[in-house]
């Protein structure tokens, strides 16, 4: 684990071992419920959580990562650790998710600032080391840019759907991708969230701390109000699926990847193997036995039992099977076509 200074813990409090930190500072958890001197830390923790439920990022009292007084740094770390205690006492998964995301975005801002500091080598080195130790990415500073091995870049960017993150839209040279500080940090946002989330999930749940009850109740009721959304669907097929059906109806050859897409799409819509098989009747190489075997394989009723899902829009684009129309509305998988949140 990295050795951090107080100001660094304030910026990246998730790097601290919670129990050890409080112990080192000589504050047993129970004291936070009663000691008026510690009240600001508790109030800050509650505020920090509330901001995260509203989708915001908590603004600390640090100015450019520094504090005017040393106790401010301490409150920063305490409030983070106490927020975790409150989450555990509340026991709401939504709260874990929202807080982890908000804190990840907050840390992201600090990392970005540290990486961008051309004159302070130690700050840059620390940010690079955090990225390396937590996420295993080798980052090398080269002039105003940061170099990341292409393979590492791909592992982390693969879940991003914006086209600017496609490798083709990056500067690639000698096996490395060149990124700005902002993009370097954006690359690990999700993992940062997952890392903070896992710290919360793995933290032990303490018994209720006297003085915390009201906050826990209020957080529980806030979470319950975060209503889940429902979706409805128009039932119309997306253009890629319509195209595949048209090709088959004309008796033309639909490539293997197109057949895979069509079958997995219809299976995911609840159609049976027997419903789907006749669609392939016109294919130039149609063989009923093989078609049924392959459909059963995709449905997971034979073979390894793996249920195959419909490929993503991105993959279909690569396979020249995408015929996007405005109604596709930036969906990432054909099965989302026509679904609307209400």
């Amino acid at each position, binding site marked *: 684990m990295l050795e951090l200074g107080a100001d660094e813990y304030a910026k990246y409090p998730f790097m601290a071992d919670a129990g050890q930190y409080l112990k080192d500072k000589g504050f047993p958890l129970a004291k936070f419920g009663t000691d008026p001197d510690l009240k600001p830390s508790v109030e800050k923790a509650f505020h920090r959580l509330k901001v995260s439920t509203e989708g915001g990022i908590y603004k600390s009292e640090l100015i450019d990562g520094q504090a005017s007084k040393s106790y401010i740094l301490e409150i920063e770390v305490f409030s983070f650790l106490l927020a975790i205690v409150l989450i555990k006492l509340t026991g709401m998964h939504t709260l874990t998710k929202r807080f982890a995301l908000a804190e990840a975005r907050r840390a992201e801002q600090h990392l970005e600032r540290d990486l961008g500091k051309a004159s302070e080598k130690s700050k840059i080195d620390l940010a690079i080391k955090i990225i390396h130790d937590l996420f295993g990415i080798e980052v090398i500073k080269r002039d105003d840019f940061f170099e990341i091995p292409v393979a590492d870049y791909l592992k982390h960017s693969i879940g991003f759907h914006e086209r600017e993150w496609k*490798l083709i839209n990056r500067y690639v040279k000698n096996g490395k991708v060149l990124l700005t500080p902002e993009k370097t940090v954006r690359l690990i946002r999700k993992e940062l969230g997952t890392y903070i989330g896992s710290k919360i999930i793995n933290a032990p749940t303490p018994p209720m701390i006297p003085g915390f009850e009201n906050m826990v109740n209020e957080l529980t009721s806030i979470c319950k109000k975060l209503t889940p959304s429902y979706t409805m669907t128009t039932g119309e097929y997306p253009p890629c699926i319509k195209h595949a059906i048209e090709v088959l109806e004309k008796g033309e050859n639909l490539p293997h990847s197109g057949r895979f897409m069509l079958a997995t799409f219809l299976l995911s819509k609840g159609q049976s193997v027997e419903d789907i098989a006749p669609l392939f009747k016109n294919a130039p190489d149609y063989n009923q036995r093989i078609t049924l075997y392959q459909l059963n394989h995709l449905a997971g009723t034979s073979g390894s039992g793996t249920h195959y899902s419909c490929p993503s829009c991105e993959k279909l684009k690569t396979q020249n099977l995408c015929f996007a129309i405005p109604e596709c509305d930036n969906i990432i998988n054909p099965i989302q076509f026509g679904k609307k949140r209400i």
Partner: protein
Amino acid sequence: MQENNIKFLEDTFKKYYFDHFNLIRVPNRTSEREFGFQKFNSGMTRHISIKDDKELHLLLMKNTPSDVYCSNACYSFPNLPMNEKDWKEADLIFDIDAKDLNLECRKNHTISKCNECNEISTDINSCSKCNSIKLEKKSLPCKNCINASKNEISKLSNILIEDFGIHPNDIHVYFSGNEGFHVYVYNSQFQKLGSKERSELTDYIMFHGAIPETFGMKKIKPNRSTFPDFDEKGWRGRFSKEMYGTKSKRSKIITELIVNGYSSFQKTLDDLSDKIGVKVDPNVTMDIHRIFRLPGSLNSKSGLTKVFCTDLTKFDPYLEASFLNEQLVEVIANCPIRFNLKNTKFGPYYGEKVSIPTFAAAYMICKKIATIS
């Protein structure tokens, strides 16, 4: 396939594996690879593990396979079912196939065999005898096809070396034995990448998904200074060379691009992928559990060998990949177009009995346009 044709091919293939086992390149980490084979007129047998080349030799002699395959992946347990194999890593492989290059010459050397009435003709849309559209197409690729494939390989190598930092010695090119080439990349940082990441690599190589901003074009107030320079590296450099033609035309072309606007620029980029992108088969590269034809083995679609190309520029598959013997055999050939093997011209044949060397007979029988008489 008829019994006598199978017998002929099996005997010929067996002799090949006996005489030319030295051509087989057993991959490193042999015992971690999955092997598979097919016999004539039969399905695939896979999930086989092999210790060394002696065991492989035995398998070839015992089974006389029509095709032999080996995984690019390494597994802890290559002989177990797929989800129990414990995938470790896989070599990066690209497949460049002449049939995917949309070449003009294809129509001159593609023939069709009707699945309904077995009629062979040069009409590739419908059967000239019974009008059926259920046709099996056979191509006898020409020099132009091979040269066009080589050009794609050279584009690919350039990207692999310059953009991905691959050492040229780690790029191995093989003729597939039929219509294309397999490019293997060893010891790269990509060994452990999964399927989605490899698909992203192919998008890069194929020039798919580029956006105008990458090449300096902004939606609002485009700025001339952000457009790529002629000598830049990577895709920005390749883009400039294709678009500007020469250094001196840069300024004029940029003005045109800006005047035409953002959407037109996007269209230009989409159209460019056909010209400057490498035409690889993305499905092959992204498949990390695939078994590939084993280098040095015979391809039952042609009777030619999948061979390592030491000097790609000079490589002639119809000379260097044909290893079957020259003993004369009598066949009834129905091959309406001419082809060239081992510096000898064959055909056209119109359902006639001919006496030709084994390598040419096997070529046509594999293509299902001749039978043993």
